[in-house]
């Protein structure tokens, strides 16, 4: 790829990313209430999206090879446990991450 072709490729990726981010705001402009169906989606989608993102982060975990997803499962349990106990976002996240790092570096 020449330099110009590389810059065009990067430009396409910028364009694609911006399209996915700006499109809803362009389709449903300010000042006019969005259709009720879209308002409904805006209300219920976030909860579903957070579920999607949890799975998305774990998409490369293989249950049948390697460590069988045990470090991931164990560390998520640690995050959930810590968060139910203390409800301090940073403690839950740091605790779970340290737990995961120890498991993958020393146990598995």
């Amino acid at each position: 790829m020449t330099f110009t072709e590389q810059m065009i490729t990067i430009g396409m990726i910028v364009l694609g990313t911006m399209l996915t981010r700006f499109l809803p705001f362009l389709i449903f402009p300010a000042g006019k209430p969005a259709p009720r169906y879209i308002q409904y989606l805006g209300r219920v989608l976030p909860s579903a999206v957070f579920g999607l993102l949890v799975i998305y982060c774990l998409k490369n975990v293989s249950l049948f090879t390697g460590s069988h997803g045990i470090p991931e499962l164990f560390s998520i349990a640690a995050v959930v446990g810590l968060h139910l106990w203390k409800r301090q976002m940073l403690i839950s996240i740091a605790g779970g991450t340290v737990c995961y790092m120890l498991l993958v570096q020393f146990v598995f």
Partner: protein
Amino acid sequence: MSREKKWKGALKAAFPHTIPIFAGFWFLGMTYGIYMNVSGFPFWYPMLMSLTIFAGSVEFVAVNLLLGAFHPLQALAVTLMINARHLFYGLSMLEKYRGNGWKDFYLIFGMCDESFSINYTARIPDGVDRGWFMFFVTLLNHFYWFLGATLGGIFGSLIHFNTEGLDFVIAAMFVVIFMEQWRKDKEHLSSLVGLGATLLCLIAFGADRFLIPGMLMILAVLTALRRPLEKRGEEL
């Protein structure tokens, strides 16, 4: 409140929310920069790309796109598919990302998974300007990513560290955000649909192509559930 006081207060309130992102992004950004470096690109490539794209997963894919043959439309199509989930974020942010003046443009530009999740769920303290708070969450995240990518691009393969597993920090953060949203919701069906549909599609389609089917399934199930969910929403 003076203008200066306004943004300083918001920066102070926003920073703690971005600490997990700091941990995750300098690491992931650096991994990305190193990957670019060992693929033969000068450091200013990851620098430029982390500034202008600011969407982690697509930037990793971009390395392969840049190494392959020149297919601009394919690059666009791949980007649209990987980033289609941003459409959901936009629909959820139609109100929050409006009325903040010039900041709106940057908020939408920088609406990555992490910025969206924090800005949607954070309990912003009273007296803190919402627009500035969300602006600094986005700006700090953007800066961490940029810093990591640039450093990785400069120092590349010189760096040896045993940070194996540190990338789990992002997954841990989404688990916590999921739980916080669960606490806030009176109705948990939507959370369960998100988890279930995505998991099902991951099993059915595999890690490389589950995202779009997963999103379509979420959309279909939530659409089918609209009447009962709206009815229950009114009763609560």
